[in-house]
């Protein structure tokens, strides 16, 4: 896809989101000028963009929506719920088109019909009966856009018809047509003929009509909608669509279709200029060197004959299927017709720096070009690249150690300073100490990041008075990672003279970069193995030592890169949150509930992957709150609560975790009912149920197979429960907990690591296999004499520093063959009796000892979640590739124990 179109797709998505959120805000408060302006601006910009690409149905639709909205804005029309619904439908439709454009680069074939249907609905929703007819008759392209802002649409009077499928016409046919126009003065016409579905019954032959078109230059016959399977095909349901280009003029073409109306036929003049563009993909241009060397001079001198000769000679050497070859062929045509405007443009396309010969008065450029590819060479600004923010601490003056800390960690520490300041009252005796301490750490952090710290002092003074905002700005100040899907505004620093440029990067490239860095981090792990081999297999210790040194250097660089990439991959929580206003609105309407959604902390950032993972579980949790949590208005009033319920969605950063809470003020969970249900479903026994405290009973909602309602509800049911939420979150190293008070509400809390790129795991050997244990759960590793293991009934335990620690044999837990565990109880030179090797891990219930065969060193690994059938094996949280090519299974201790 060419950069311009890509830009359009990305930008339009943002506009649509803006418009949708603004509409919802407006519905809540119709006097919200700010929201109104936002919606209006977003719709207007969307229309402007679609106009640029000739996506007529989209332009028409946005135009209609904008007109209506303008009437609302002028106070001429109230904004009722029905109108909001329709406008949201419009946004949904445009979103689907954008998806199609991203995929196919054109609107789907039914776009015009869909657009018309929605335009009609909009009028209906607005109760507009006055000038429907007048509007409907206006030709979409010629329809003037809002007068206040000029749009980049082509000049109306001379543009003719330039549909997006112009680009589908092959080079050769376009040249044939253009030559006919330029040399013989022929008028070119485009036609699109889509007979109605019953056309075959009326006796005519659409193909014969097309066949009779004179001087047909190009014809494409396509299905207007996809074919059915041959077995179920209806031979007489006409699905054909004909598109063509003829050099006999629009009137002559239209005459062949005398009995067709504008429903089925569109036939218009197309300016020859619109057909002049080089096709094909850019190819190998090395052949062109000679031409490129001589062309500027020939062109500047106005020696067209020589230029033509040179271009023609070159054209025989370069394939006409690649962009350069096509441009050369066009150049010859343009030179023959002495069209200097095109000559200059084509030369530019070929990479020739063009200076307009002074003698030649240039004709006005026939802008804008219909095909976006054509403009590719000119606006280099689209791809203009600035530095990716200043966050990466690569500044040369810092100590070498700087590289050991990643910028993201620095940000996390900075964030904590805000939390510390927020945790103390301004009149507290310790407040001055808090401020001073925070200030010192913040300055050091900024220095470590290589950023200016001059704004800190003023911000601290404000913080001392209880206003944390300026300080917050400082903390977030340089944190302008460039989230791929959102625009990072140019940021002026305190001095105002330096600004951070930003540019858009498409998310895929960043993912790719992230993957590459991840691979690098893992690949570097092969160095220690190599050093080991150098030393032991080949006996070259010097080389081994040198390898280890190099390894340290590469490690550090890889770590830096990782930090930088992670910074770029940070996205605000708003990415997920923005879907909820719509969800809450739609579902609460359907359920006749009144719910207000309060969102906090949308700007909290987390790794892109984390954000992506959080989407599903959060949606499920919010749906649960709407469906099961908040009661009907009647029930609420009966309980003495306001009729309108509240769902609070809050995100914040705590240390190196991001916390998201979904809280409702609904009916809450009934522990007794939960216990009963669990017993009924035979998830626990009656005796077990009786032993559960109320708090423990709440945890039952996370049990697989548990659902709080009998009927699987339309909304949150579908057999997916909180157990899936929990296992999803656990799989990515997060956790979920619930708190609830009957009659008062429920709060679910999700905690996810801020990033999940690289984990530090400890390798353990069991039964000859290697497994990984997340380092954060490892408390210690000990070797004990076998006799220290005490048996209490079936259970084994050891006493470590006066604490009884239950033991689990990892080979049994994993159902591995214990006989292979020859080293489990082993005797060696240093011990008199057999020893057991125990890995003490932290669990919510207290430490647990895992009996393993041996430990290995800690490893940096990229843990990939289990996929396919393996994903259901809960004992493992993922797999990781080791430096020596082995695959490591990482244990999910929570599930295992």
């Amino acid at each position: 896809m060419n950069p311009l179109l890509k830009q359009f797709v990305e930008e339009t998505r943002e506009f649509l989101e803006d418009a949708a959120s603004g509409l919802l805000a407006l519905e809540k408060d119709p006097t919200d000028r700010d929201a109104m302006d936002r919606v209006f601006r977003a719709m207007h910009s969307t229309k402007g963009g679609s106009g640029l690409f000739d996506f007529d149905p989209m332009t028409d639709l946005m135009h209609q929506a904008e007109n209506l909205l303008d009437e609302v804005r002028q106070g001429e029309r109230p904004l009722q719920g029905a109108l909001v619904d329709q406008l949201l439908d419009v946004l949904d439709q445009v979103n689907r088109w954008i998806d199609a454009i991203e995929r196919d680069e054109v609107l789907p074939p039914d776009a015009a019909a869909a657009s018309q249907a929605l335009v009609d609905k909009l009028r209906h929703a607005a109760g507009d009966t006055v000038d429907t007819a007048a509007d409907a008759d206006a030709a979409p392209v010629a329809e003037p856009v809002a007068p206040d802002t000029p749009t980049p649409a082509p000049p109306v009077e001379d543009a003719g018809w330039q549909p997006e499928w112009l680009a589908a016409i092959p080079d050769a046919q376009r040249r044939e047509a253009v030559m006919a126009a330029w040399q013989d003065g022929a008028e070119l016409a485009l036609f699109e003929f889509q007979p109605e579905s019953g056309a075959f019954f009326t006796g005519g032959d659409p193909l014969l009509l097309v066949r009779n078109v004179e001087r047909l230059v190009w014809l494409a016959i396509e299905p207007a909608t996809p074919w059915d399977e041959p077995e179920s095909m209806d031979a007489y349901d006409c699905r054909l669509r004909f598109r063509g280009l003829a050099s006999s003029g629009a009137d002559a073409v239209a005459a062949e279709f005398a009995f067709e109306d504008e429903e089925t036929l569109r036939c218009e003049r197309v300016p020859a200029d619109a057909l002049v563009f080089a096709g094909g993909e850019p190819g190998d241009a090395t052949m062109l060197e000679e031409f490129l060397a001589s062309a500027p001079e020939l062109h500047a001198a106005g020696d067209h004959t020589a230029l033509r000769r040179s271009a023609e000679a070159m054209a025989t050497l370069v394939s006409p299927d690649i962009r350069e070859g096509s441009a050369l062929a066009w150049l010859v045509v343009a030179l023959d017709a002495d069209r200097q405007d095109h000559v200059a443009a084509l030369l530019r396309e070929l990479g020739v720096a063009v200076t307009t010969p002074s003698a030649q008065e240039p004709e006005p450029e026939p802008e804008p070009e219909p095909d976006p590819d054509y403009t590719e060479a000119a606006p280099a600004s689209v791809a203009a690249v600035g530095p990716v923010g200043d966050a990466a601490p690569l500044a040369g003056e810092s100590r070498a150690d700087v590289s050991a800390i990643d910028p993201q960690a620095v940000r996390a520490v900075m964030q904590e300073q805000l939390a510390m300041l927020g945790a103390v009252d301004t009149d507290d005796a310790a407040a001055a100490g808090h401020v001073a301490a925070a200030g010192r750490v913040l300055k050091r952090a900024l220095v470590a990041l290589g950023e200016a710290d001059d704004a800190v002092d003023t911000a601290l003074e404000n913080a001392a008075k209880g206003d944390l905002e300026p300080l917050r700005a400082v903390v977030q100040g340089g944190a302008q990672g460039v989230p791929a899907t959102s625009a990072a505004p140019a940021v002026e620093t305190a001095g105002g003279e330096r600004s951070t440029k930003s540019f858009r990067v498409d998310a895929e490239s960043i993912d790719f970069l992230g993957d590459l860095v991840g691979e690098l981090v893992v690949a570097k792990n092969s160095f220690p193995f190599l050093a080991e081999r150098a030393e032991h297999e080949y006996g070259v210790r010097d080389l081994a030592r040198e390898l280890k040194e190099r390894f340290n250097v590469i490690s550090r660089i890889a770590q830096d890169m990782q930090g930088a990439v992670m910074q770029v991959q940070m996205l605000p929580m708003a990415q997920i949150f923005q879907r909820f206003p719509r969800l809450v609105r739609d579902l609460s309407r359907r359920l006749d509930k009144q719910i207000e959604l309060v969102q906090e902390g949308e700007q909290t950032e987390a790794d892109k992957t984390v954000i992506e993972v959080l989407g599903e579980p959060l949606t499920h949790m919010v749906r649960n709150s709407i469906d099961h949590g908040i009661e009907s208005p009647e029930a609420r009033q009966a309980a003495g609560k306001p009729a309108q319920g509240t769902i609070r969605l809050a995100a914040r950063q705590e240390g190196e975790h991001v916390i998201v809470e979904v809280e409702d003020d609904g009916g809450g969970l009934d522990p007794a009912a939960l216990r009963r249900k669990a017993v009924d479903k035979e998830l626990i026994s009656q005796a077990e149920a009786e032993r559960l405290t109320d708090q423990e009973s709440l945890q039952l909602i996370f049990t697989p197979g548990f659902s709080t309602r009998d009927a699987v509800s339309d909304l949150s049911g579908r057999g997916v429960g909180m157990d899936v939420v929990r296992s999803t979150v656990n799989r990515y190293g997060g956790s979920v907990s619930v708190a609830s008070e009957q009659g008062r509400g429920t709060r679910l809390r999700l905690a996810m690591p801020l990033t999940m790129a690289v984990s530090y795991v400890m390798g353990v050997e069991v039964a000859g296999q290697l497994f990984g244990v997340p380092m954060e759960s490892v408390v210690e590793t000990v070797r004990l004499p076998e006799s220290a293991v005490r048996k209490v009934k079936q259970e084994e335990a050891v006493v470590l520093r006066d604490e009884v620690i239950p033991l689990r044999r990892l080979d049994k837990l994993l159902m591995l063959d214990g006989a292979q565990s020859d080293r489990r109880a082993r005797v060696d030179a240093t011990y008199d009796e057999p020893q057991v090797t125990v890995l003490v891990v932290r669990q919510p219930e207290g430490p647990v000892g895992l009996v393993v065969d041996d430990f290995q060193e800690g490893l940096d690994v990229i843990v990939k979640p289990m996929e396919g059938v393996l994903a259901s094996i809960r004992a493992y949280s993922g797999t990781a590739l080791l430096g020596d090519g082995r695959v490591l299974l990482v244990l999910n201790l929570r599930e295992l124990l």
Partner: protein
Amino acid sequence: MPIDYRKTVARLEGTCTVEEAEELLQWLQANPQGKVNLKECGHLHAAVLQVLMAVRPPLSAEPSDPFLARWVTPAITGT
């Protein structure tokens, strides 16, 4: 006899009309391996063309008619 149905090949000859579409479709449904010979075909009705476009049988011979060869064959063969 504009369409001559042989064992594995349907030969379209002269001008094929709208009435032929249904029969051709049935023959192609019954003979999934069937080929179509367009050599002697001068024109075919859009309904017949539509059947060929949807089923996309292999062509045992392309049309000699220039209009069909130039614009219709690509629609059938998908090239």
